[in-house]
């Protein structure tokens, strides 16, 4: 998969309480399947996916596609044994913050995860998408869409109701996160703050001069 033919390598981290469905969510996104059994292979800590990102100009026109190599990292449950510190967060460019719509405590803990992120991520306001997962289990719902949206609005982050079981809004949530990150990079003139190794140009793969110079600034 890592054949080197990409414009950007972007690392995402899925966070949230144990049991909210992080692994299933990532599995649904990368493989389009729901795996109700736990993946018991130790050592597979992240999943990868290639996408083409087309930036949309202010006039709605879409620019040239950029090849994005996404790494989606999972915590595998080690947060129960050690606190996830700077080392774990520092290289991630964007965060998928999940809670379980059928588990109120996991929703209440979103605040803790947000403060952890503000402390440990590469900057105080990293790009985050909040996902209320397991929306297919509507008869067990313990958190209303309204209160979840309210919290997301408070933090100024997008909110999606997702289902790793049937795939609802899973890829939309990741797409929005990718879009936020790509927009942040476009906005940012001095890209030196981007965490090392998180986003990197992978050599001049095309001869478009304006894009070439843009990329070279990101090469950490």
């Amino acid at each position: 998969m890592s054949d080197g033919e990409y414009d950007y390598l972007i690392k995402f981290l899925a966070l949230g309480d144990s049991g909210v469905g992080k692994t299933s969510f990532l599995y649904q996104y990368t493989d389009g399947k729901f795996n109700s059994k736990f993946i018991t292979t130790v050592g597979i800590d992240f999943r990868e996916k290639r996408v083409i990102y087309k930036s949309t100009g202010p006039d709605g026109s879409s620019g040239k596609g950029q090849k994005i190599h996404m790494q989606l990292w999972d915590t595998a449950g080690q947060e129960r044994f050690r606190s996830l510190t700077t080392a774990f967060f520092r290289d991630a460019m964007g965060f998928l913050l999940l809670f379980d719509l059928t588990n109120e405590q996991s929703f209440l803990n979103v605040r803790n995860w947000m403060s952890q992120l503000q402390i440990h991520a590469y900057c105080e306001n990293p790009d985050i998408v909040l996902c209320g997962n397991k929306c297919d289990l509507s008869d067990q719902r313990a958190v209303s869409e309204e209160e979840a949206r309210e919290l997301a609005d408070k933090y100024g982050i997008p909110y999606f109701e997702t289902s790793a079981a049937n795939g609802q809004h899973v890829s939309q949530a990741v797409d929005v996160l990718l879009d936020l990150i790509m927009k942040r990079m476009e906005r940012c003139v001095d890209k030196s703050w981007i965490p090392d190794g998180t986003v990197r140009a992978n050599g001049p793969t095309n001869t478009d001069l304006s894009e070439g110079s843009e990329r070279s600034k990101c090469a950490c």
Partner: protein
Amino acid sequence: MVDQPLWEQIGSSFVQHYYQLFDSDRTQLGSIYTDTSCLTWEGQQFQGKNDIVEKLTSLPFSKIAHSITAQDHQPTPDCCILSMVVGQLKADNDPIMGFHQSFILKNVNDSWVCTNDMFRLAIHNFG
């Protein structure tokens, strides 16, 4: 089995006892430590049975199961036993994770206590 060296017998029965307590009732683990025992848990240091047991009981899972893959034991020059364990564990419904744990056991007043305990998960996604 009769020919097993003494340190092997003591080490392996300690290991069996330790994980049996850990998986059934972590609050009972105080019985194997002393007030000067050291625990290093994922790089965090704890000393004395009270602090150690407090740490172990505060780990945020309600169910845990350890499965021992391999264990090795050696006598040390000062008549202690050094034990190393490689295994897998499952906390609540999380994915199974590998771990390593090492112990030093010492004979104090005719019973064996754990003076040193080091624990690490065997996962490599945080560097």
